[in-house]
């Protein structure tokens, strides 16, 4: 099995990691870089709880080899709040009670952050499509969609 030295920018910080070829990006974020925001759940691309932003696009980190991420910019939920101040999306999740157990929250917030960046005033349908890949088993999705729409109104 081959080993590779990869360079990543994770939440704004340059990191160099030596990885084995069969390690996923999810694995390296959690076990090498101690970022436990992305969750290891289905690990087959269904649940979306390992969502991260790669070059600002939401992707499922369980379906990406760590070595494929060499040279890319990675954002996890740990990189969303700035100096302890929650982002508008995060604040609206709190206000709307858009979580119960919280396990899908990092993924849902990141999918929402990416959506609002490419489309600052989405329709309800566009919000639903953007979080389609993130499964929540507690709240249903209404509060999550409400929170994202509210965050969009705040930003525009």
């Amino acid at each position: 099995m081959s080993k590779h030295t990869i360079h990543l920018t994770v939440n704004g910080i340059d990191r160099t990691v030596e990885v084995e070829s069969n390690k996923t990006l999810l694995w390296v974020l959690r076990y090498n870089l101690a970022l436990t925001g992305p969750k290891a759940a289905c690990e087959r691309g269904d649940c979306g709880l390992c969502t991260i932003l790669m070059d600002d696009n939401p992707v499922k980190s369980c379906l990406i080899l760590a070595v494929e991420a060499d040279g890319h910019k990675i954002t996890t939920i740990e990189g969303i709040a700035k100096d302890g101040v929650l982002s508008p999306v995060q604040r609206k999740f709190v206000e709307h009670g858009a979580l119960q157990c919280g396990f899908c929250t990092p993924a849902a917030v990141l999918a929402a952050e990416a959506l609002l960046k490419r489309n600052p005033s989405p329709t309800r349908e566009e919000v639903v499509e953007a979080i389609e890949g993130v499964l929540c088993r507690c709240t249903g999705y209404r509060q999550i969609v409400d929170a994202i729409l509210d965050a969009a109104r705040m930003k525009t």
Partner: protein
Amino acid sequence: MLPKFDYIAPKTIEETFELLDKHGQDARLLAGGTDLIVSLRARERIPKAVIDIKAMKELHDLSFDEKRGLSIGAAVTLNRLLHYDATSKHFPVLCEAVSTIGDYEIRNRATLTGNICNASPAADSAPALLVLEAAVNVASRKGRRSIPVREFFAGVKKTVLARGEMVTSINVPTPPKGSRGGYLKARRTVGEDLAVVGVGGLVTPSSKSSKTVRLAYASVAPTPVRALEAEKIFERDKPLDELLDQAMPIVSKTISPITDVRGGKEYRTNLVEVLTRRLLQRLWEAN
């Protein structure tokens, strides 16, 4: 945890040919990884080498020209294809089909070439590529060839690609002027799901009163299938309902659905009829 393998990202196609020759059946090509990594984790087939094609610049090419059609490099992601102006303008059937694959995040990584090389009977892009009569461009050390997509699938999860061959791009000819295409997909949930049945159609006015129709299906046979025999019925100048009544029994003979976790054989057969009627009614009136 994934099984152990070597990872190689060749920068040139010649290097890739060498690797494919050297490793043969022990190599797997990696584009988006949304099917491959799932299959590695399930240990369906454990390769010695995973060859990432994304370092080859020419495989990222995406271009359109009325005469040559749409050319989609093997490493082009589905979202890039969907956001390319020419796709929605000239190939609505491809747009509709591709936008039902996985979910937004999956489409940020997954590729069209990967969708057909995975050769799932449920591949949503396949009915669209079949009715558009797309060609799969293949290369190996021995040379290059172009395979009509209709001849590309050999069985469940099997293609006609020979040892040492790789897909470099897919070429989709521009549909005739005035044609209209669409894709309907039955699935179990509103969000991401594999197709219970997928129907792709392309309707082109051939004269003032008659039309040519192309129909293709996913998830109702060991491979995606084109309904060539049934299509001939639509050449007649008759009301659509009459044509459908004549064509549907022929479509039923083209398909051979099975019962699985997503739906029963009888249910699938019924869905084929319902979705075909619904799709053609939409495309017909629009003409």
